[in-house]
C-alpha cells in the first residue's frame, strides 16, 4: 500500500522532516480534510490562537489528486478558523495540489513562524525555505509571476500579509477563500508555497482505473448538470434560479428577490461577457468563466460573488462585480466574507449606527474600499475583521449575516430552510458546502423538496454533509457529485408532475435516510449514479471503499472537525443563525418564511448521535473509530 508522505515544517527553527502516515490512519482517514482534521487534533496545541506562532496549518491532497480522475485537482488547507475560533478547512482547485503530489508530498504540516517572509519551495522530494522578502507587499498575481513558471503556486496578497480575518490563499486564479487561511499564512510570514515534481502519483489498479475514468468522464459529459448546465453557465447560472425562488439574498438578506437580478445573472454573463469556459486540471466539467476586464482575460465571478456584490448590496453593475472579483483575488480576500461584511456595514449606515463610507446601491467606490481593507487603512481596518466583530462593537447582531463568525453564502435560508440548518451546523460556519448544500435540493435545482418545511431536513443535511466531506477528502471537486440528481429530472424539468412528486416524496424521506445512515457500512455497492468517487478511491488505493463506507468516512470527518471546534471552545450555542433568519419572516404575514432552527436542530443532533449539547456521544465515536 502506498502511504501518504508529509513534510513537517517548523518555520521557527527551520527544521524539516519527512514522515509517512501510518497505514491505520490512511485507511481510516484517507486524506484531504479528513486526515487533516485528525492531524489537527493530534498536533494543534489546545487553546492557541489561530494567528499565534504555535498554531499549525495543514496543506494536503487526497488520494485521487493527480491521478487523472475527473475533477480531482482539489487540495485542502485545514487550520484554526480566524473568524470562528473553531475548525477551518478551505478547498481549492488549480495545479498546486497536483504538483505537490508529483513532487512526492501528499501534505505539509506547518508550525512556527519564520523570522522573515518565506517561500516554501518543494521540488522532487526536497523542501527548501527561501527568503521571500522581495515578494512581500506584492499582490497575489505579481507574486505568482515572480515564482518559477512551471511550479504549482499557492500565495497570499496584501490582505494575508495584513492579517485580514477573511484573507484567502490564491493558486493561479483559483482561491482557497474561506475562514481566513491567508491571514494564517501571513501570521507565519509565509508569502508563497510552490511545488514542482515529475513523479506519477501511485495508482494501484492502473488498468481498471483508467477504464473506470473513461466511463466516468463519459457519464459526466452526458449528465445534464455536469455536461450542459455547468459548462454553459458555471455556478453563475444560479442567480436567476435563486431569484425566481426568492432565495437570492438582497440588501443584506432583508429580502430574497431582486427586481433587476437578471443584469448580474449567469445568462447575462454568458451572453455579454464570456470569452470562453475553462477548467482545473483533469476536469471535464469546465465550469470556469473567462471574461474580459479592461482588455485582459481574467477569471469570471462565481455565483456567490455575483449575488453578494450584486443584489445583496442592492446593486446590479456587472462591470463593477467583475472588477471587484478580480481585485479581491489579487489582494487575496474571500469575496463572500468581504461582500458580506460590506453589506453589514451598509446596513449599519442605513440605520444610522456607523458610517464606513459604503451605502446600499453604490459600487463605484468599492474597489478603493477593498484596497483599504486589504491594507487595513484607518477605519477600514475594522471592516477587515468581519461582520461578527463589527456587530460586537457596533451592535446589530440580529442582522449580522454570519454563523460562527463566517459570513453566509449567497442562499437566503428563509426560502431554503435546510440550508439554514446547514449554515448553523457547518463546522466552518456559514458555508453552504460544509452545510450540506441543501439549497440545491430546495431552491435552485431541478428537483425541489418543500423549501419551507423542516421535515426530513435534519437527516438530509447530515447525509449531504457526510457525502460532501468524503468527496472533498478524496481530492475531488464537489461539482463532480452533482450527478446524484438523476438526469431524468433535468429532462422532465421542474414543472413535470413526476419531478414534483419526487420532490414531495423526498420531503418525507427522513426516516429512510436515517436508516441508510445507520446501516451505511453494509452498502457494499458502487455506482456512477450515487458516489462514483468511492470506486475511484478503491481502485487507486486498494482500500475496500464502497458507497456506504464512503459516507461513513464523511461522517468520521465531520465528527473529527466538530471535536476540534468543541475542544477550542465552541458550543451548541454557536450552532445558530442571526435573528433576522429565525424570527423575521421574509414575507410579512407568512410565518413559514423563517428558518425553524429550533425544530430542526434537536433532530439533527439526534441523527448525528450527539447529545443535547451537540457533543458526539461516546457510542458515536466508538462507531466511527475515533479516539480522542
Amino acid at each position, binding site marked *: 500500500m502506498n502511504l501518504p508522505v508529509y513534510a513537517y515544517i517548523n518555520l521557527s527553527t527551520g527544521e524539516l522532516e519527512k514522515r509517512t502516515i501510518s497505514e491505520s490512519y490512511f485507511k481510516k482517514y484517507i486524506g484531504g480534510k479528513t486526515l487533516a482534521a485528525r492531524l489537527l487534533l493530534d498536533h494543534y496545541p489546545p487553546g492557541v490562537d489561530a494567528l499565534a506562532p504555535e498554531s499549525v496549518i495543514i496543506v494536503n491532497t487526497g488520494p485521487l489528486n493527480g491521478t487523472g480522475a475527473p475533477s480531482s485537482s482539489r487540495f485542502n488547507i485545514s487550520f484554526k478558523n480566524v473568524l470562528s475560533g473553531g475548525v477551518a478547512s478551505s478547498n481549492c482547485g488549480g495545479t498546486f495540489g497536483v504538483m505537490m503530489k508529483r513532487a512526492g508530498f501528499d501534505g505539509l504540516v506547518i508550525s512556527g513562524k519564520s523570522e522573515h517572509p518565506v517561500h516554501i519551495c518543494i521540488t522532487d522530494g526536497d523542501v527548501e525555505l527561501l527568503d521571500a522578502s522581495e515578494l512581500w507587499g506584492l499582490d497575489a498575481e505579481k507574486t505568482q509571476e515572480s515564482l518559477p513558471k512551471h511550479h504549482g503556486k499557492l500565495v497570499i496578497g496584501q490582505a494575508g500579509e495584513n492579517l485580514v480575518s477573511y484573507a484567502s490563499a490564491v493558486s493561479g486564479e483559483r482561491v482557497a477563500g474561506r475562514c481566513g487561511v491567508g491571514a494564517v499564512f501571513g501570521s507565519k510570514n509565509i508569502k508563497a508555497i510552490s511545488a514542482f515534481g515529475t513523479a506519477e502519483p501511485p495508482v494501484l489498479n492502473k488498468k481498471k482505473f483508467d477504464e473506470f475514468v473513461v466511463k466516468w468522464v463519459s457519464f459526466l459529459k452526458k449528465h*445534464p*448538470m*455536469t455536461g450542459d*448546465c*455547468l459548462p*454553459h*453557465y*458555471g*455556478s*453563475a*447560472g*444560479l442567480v*436567476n*434560479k435563486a*431569484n*425566481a*425562488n*426568492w432565495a437570492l439574498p438582497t440588501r443584506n438578506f432583508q429580502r430574497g*428577490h431582486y*427586481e433587476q*437580478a*437578471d443584469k448580474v445573472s*449567469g*445568462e447575462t454573463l454568458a*451572453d455579454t461577457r464570456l470569452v470562453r469556459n475553462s477548467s482545473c486540471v483533469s476536469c471535464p466539467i469546465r*465550469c470556469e468563466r473567462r471574461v474580459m476586464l479592461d482588455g485582459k482575460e481574467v477569471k469570471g465571478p*462565481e*455565483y456567490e460573488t455575483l449575488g453578494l456584490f450584486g443584489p445583496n448590496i442592492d446593486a446590479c453593475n456587472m462591470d463593477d462585480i467583475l472588477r471587484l472579483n478580480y481585485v479581491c483575488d489579487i489582494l487575496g480576500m474571500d469575496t463572500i466574507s468581504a461582500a458580506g461584511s460590506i453589506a453589514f456595514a451598509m446596513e449599519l449606515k442605513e440605520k444610522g449606527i456607523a458610517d464606513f463610507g459604503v451605502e446600499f446601491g453604490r459600487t463605484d467606490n468599492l474597489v478603493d474600499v477593498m484596497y483599504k481593507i486589504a491594507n487595513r487603512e484607518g477605519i477600514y481596518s475594522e471592516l477587515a475583521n468581519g461582520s461578527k466583530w463589527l456587530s460586537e462593537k457596533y451592535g446589530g447582531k440580529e442582522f449580522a449575516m454570519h454563523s460562527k463568525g463566517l459570513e453566509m453564502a449567497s442562499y437566503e435560508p428563509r426560502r431554503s430552510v435546510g440550508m439554514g440548518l446547514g449554515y448553523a451546523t457547518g463546522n466552518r460556519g456559514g458555508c*453552504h*458546502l460544509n452545510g450540506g*448544500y441543501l439549497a*440545491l435540493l430546495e431552491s*435552485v*435545482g*431541478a428537483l*425541489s423538496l418543500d423549501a419551507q418545511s423542516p421535515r426530513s431536513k435534519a437527516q438530509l443535511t447530515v447525509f449531504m454533509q457526510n457525502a460532501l466531506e468524503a468527496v472533498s477528502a478524496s481530492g475531488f471537486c*464537489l*461539482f463532480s457529485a*452533482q450527478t446524484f440528481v438523476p438526469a431524468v429530472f*433535468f*429532462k*422532465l*424539468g*421542474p*414543472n*413535470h408532475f413526476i419531478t*414534483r412528486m419526487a420532490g414531495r416524496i423526498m420531503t418525507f424521506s427522513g426516516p429512510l435516510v436515517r436508516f441508510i445512515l445507520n446501516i451505511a457500512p453494509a452498502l457494499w455497492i458502487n455506482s456512477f449514479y450515487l458516489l462514483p468517487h468511492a470506486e475511484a478511491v478503491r481502485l487507486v488505493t486498494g482500500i475496500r471503499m464502497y458507497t456506504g463506507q464512503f459516507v461513513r468516512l464523511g461522517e468520521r470527518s465531520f465528527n473529527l472537525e466538530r471535536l476540534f471546534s468543541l475542544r477550542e471552545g465552541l458550543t451548541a450555542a454557536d450552532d445558530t443563525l442571526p435573528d433576522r433568519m429565525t424570527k423575521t419572516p421574509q414575507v410579512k404575514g407568512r410565518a413559514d418564511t423563517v428558518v425553524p432552527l429550533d425544530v430542526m436542530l434537536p433532530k439533527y443532533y439526534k441523527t448525528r448521535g450527539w447529545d443535547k449539547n451537540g457533543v458526539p456521544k461516546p457510542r458515536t465515536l466508538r462507531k466511527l473509530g475515533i479516539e480522542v
Partner: protein
Amino acid sequence: MSAKIQVKYWGELITLTGKKDDELEASSVAELIKQLEKTYGKAAAKEGKRMLIAVNGTNIQLLERCKTRLNEGDRVAFLPLSGGG
C-alpha cells in the same frame, strides 16, 4: 382575455425560436406554452415546459404553476436549469 406578454428565451429555446426576446399573447402560462407550440412548433413548447419558468422574476412553482394568470405587460422568462455551489 389574452394579454401581451414580454417573453425572454434562454438556452436551447433561443435556437428553436431564433429569438432572445419575444412578445406573445396569452392569459396564462399554459396558454403561453400553447402559443409557443403554435408559433415555433412542438419542440419549442416541449423545451419551454422543461425549463424553469419565471413570471415577473418568480418561479411559477411558487405561484399557480401553469395556471398562473398573465396580465398585460407581464414578463415571462424561460430559464435553463443550473447548478454550482
